[in-house]
């Protein structure tokens, strides 16, 4: 009995060690460290100019030696990226320089999700606060041409006490083509947020399953052609406002 016990325990220990080696992917991780420098790994994990774009921020910090902390605007929704560049000694000094990460162009398409037929939510308006002034329009691409005379769009508040409140109704429709229409919104972001961090839109008098695609569009607060570009890498910019 004792002999068995003595033999079994080292085997269990060996198996557990093998499990740990497998769990930690030790060979892969070892190789990854050997083949990639610290900066390479940062770029691979966070992206150089994609997602959090920490690589680009670290490059700017090294290259420009900022006297004040620049403002960072990331057009991709990620965790805070300030940590990569902030200088705590200058924490209250905000620079005129602005870093734009993953700049999408002059027009921004707002992320939305479909709740049911012809109903759409825009979540997390706080994300857009520093990127747009107003939500301009709703573009609707149709499956087939239809009569659009009675179409209306209702806008509802965020859920408070289990209910949404009707905030606005839009009727002004522009026909772009047989398959494409636009509803003018002209919604000032400061009028909606911070009272509501999410809003719901409901398209009325439109048959079900007729919508192929929709886009909520807004003008970007930053027009790259009207600012002083100090540095650029793909869609990441270091800019200075001209005014």
């Amino acid at each position, binding site marked *: 009995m004792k002999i068995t016990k003595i033999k079994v325990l080292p085997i269990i220990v060996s198996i*557990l060690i093998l499990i740990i080696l497998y769990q*930690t992917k030790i060979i892969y991780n070892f190789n990854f460290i050997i083949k990639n420098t610290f900066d390479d790994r940062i770029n691979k994990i966070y992206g150089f100019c994609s997602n959090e774009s920490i690589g680009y921020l670290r490059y700017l910090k090294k290259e420009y030696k900022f006297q004040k902390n620049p403002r960072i605007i990331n057009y991709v929704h990620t965790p805070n990226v300030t*940590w990569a560049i902030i200088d705590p000694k200058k924490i209250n000094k905000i620079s005129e320089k602005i870093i734009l990460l993953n700049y999408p162009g002059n027009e921004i398409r707002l992320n939305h999700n479909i709740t049911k037929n012809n109903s759409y939510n825009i979540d997390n308006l706080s994300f857009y606060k520093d990127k747009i002034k107003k939500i301009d329009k709703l573009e609707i691409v149709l499956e087939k041409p239809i009569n659009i005379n009675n179409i209306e769009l209702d806008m509802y508040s965020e859920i408070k006490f289990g209910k949404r409140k009707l905030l606005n109704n839009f009727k002004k429709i522009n026909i772009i083509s047989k398959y494409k229409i636009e509803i003018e919104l002209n919604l000032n972001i400061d009028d909606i947020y911070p009272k509501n961090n999410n809003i719901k839109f409901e398209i009325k008098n439109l048959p079900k399953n007729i919508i192929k695609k929709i886009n909520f569009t807004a003008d970007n607060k930053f027009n790259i052609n009207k600012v002083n570009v100090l540095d650029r890498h793909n869609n990441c910019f270091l800019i200075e406002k001209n005014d």
Partner: protein
Amino acid sequence: MTEIIKIFLVFPVFLIFLLMPLSIFNKNNNQLNLNNLSLNLIINLNILLIFSFTSIPINSYQVIFLISYASIFLIKIFKLKSIHTDDKTFFILLIFSFILFSIVIISNLDLGWDAKYFYYIKSLFFFEELNLSDLNNFEHNKWHPHLGSYIWAFFWKLPFFNIEYYGRLFYLFIFFFSLLYVVFSNLNNNYIKTIFFLIITIITFNYERFSGLQEILIFSLLLIASHKVFTLNFKTRLIDILTIFLILNLIIWIKSEGIVYVFILISMLLINKNLNLKERTFIIIGALLIFSLKSLIYLYLNYNLNAQPYNLNFILTINFADILFRLKNIIIYSAYYSLKNIFFFLGIVVLIILNLQKNTKFKIRTFNAYFILNSFFIIFAYLFREMEIIYALKTTMERIIFTSSAVYIHLLILYINSYFKIKE
């Protein structure tokens, strides 16, 4: 390759925190004194806490501190004739697990959400030789205390290392030490110790816990504190109580909810039948002292004492339907995350079994108290939180269950030990 070599080099630096100032070998048999090892860690972390209150930058005392400790230890170690096999196993497991999992951490590098918002930036303040009053300029400073970030900065600032993850590797070191401390203090056979240490490691390790989040520190300290509370020795209990207070003093300076764990541990101490009135009074005064000290320092630094999302006005507006809705979700999410955390779940199962046994020799009162108070904490923390409840549960419940599981891991080790003793 340099980074891998540096992991081997940083290990002895971390080890110094366990080896000094108290002697780690028993005078009579040259065996490793695990209690002194843990006490050294606690004392040294308290020393760092004291330094963090001053405006002395880390680099002006760090090297002197480490070199003087290392020199004294080397003089002592030369007098040592031999090392016991158990002690060798302890150190082999510590270095093996540390090196292996360090490679995972330095390969991954990704910081956790809260680390990016709070802890890394606070650590950067200390790294850049700023102090606690400068932290007032950081808008997110109010949410959590600073000790975890200070420890992070201390090891980040090591000469020739200077990469942030060396600070986080110290969290890994404390984690493995606390596991080994509890396993080696409570189990007998060397193989059994190794097996249980490896099993707990396999189940518990998850990169995110070492991504700069502070729960791992509270978890490790709770594990050590749980052992100290449970094994309160009649002869040395004053030293034991003092050690527990030193641990509690660290916990309240790591995370805001640390204050709740301090309250729970104090309650576990107070229900110990062997303590006399004088000792109970000493415990209550001690607890008040560490709370008051923190409040005084916060007042002095002009920090916000109550920045957490709890306030009376909000609590008064919660209606019955809201309470039911919140309770329903708290139960659903806590059940889900408890089932996901095997130690938390098994710990509660074992506690129920022990309560059903009539002649158990286990001191289950201590663990019963923990179960009741910890459950109340989880329920009330979410019931009265001024935050969207589902979001709060989804983003934080897993971490609270993990932190709380430390005491249940200790209970499971004790239960397994008693099982093997019966078998023998």
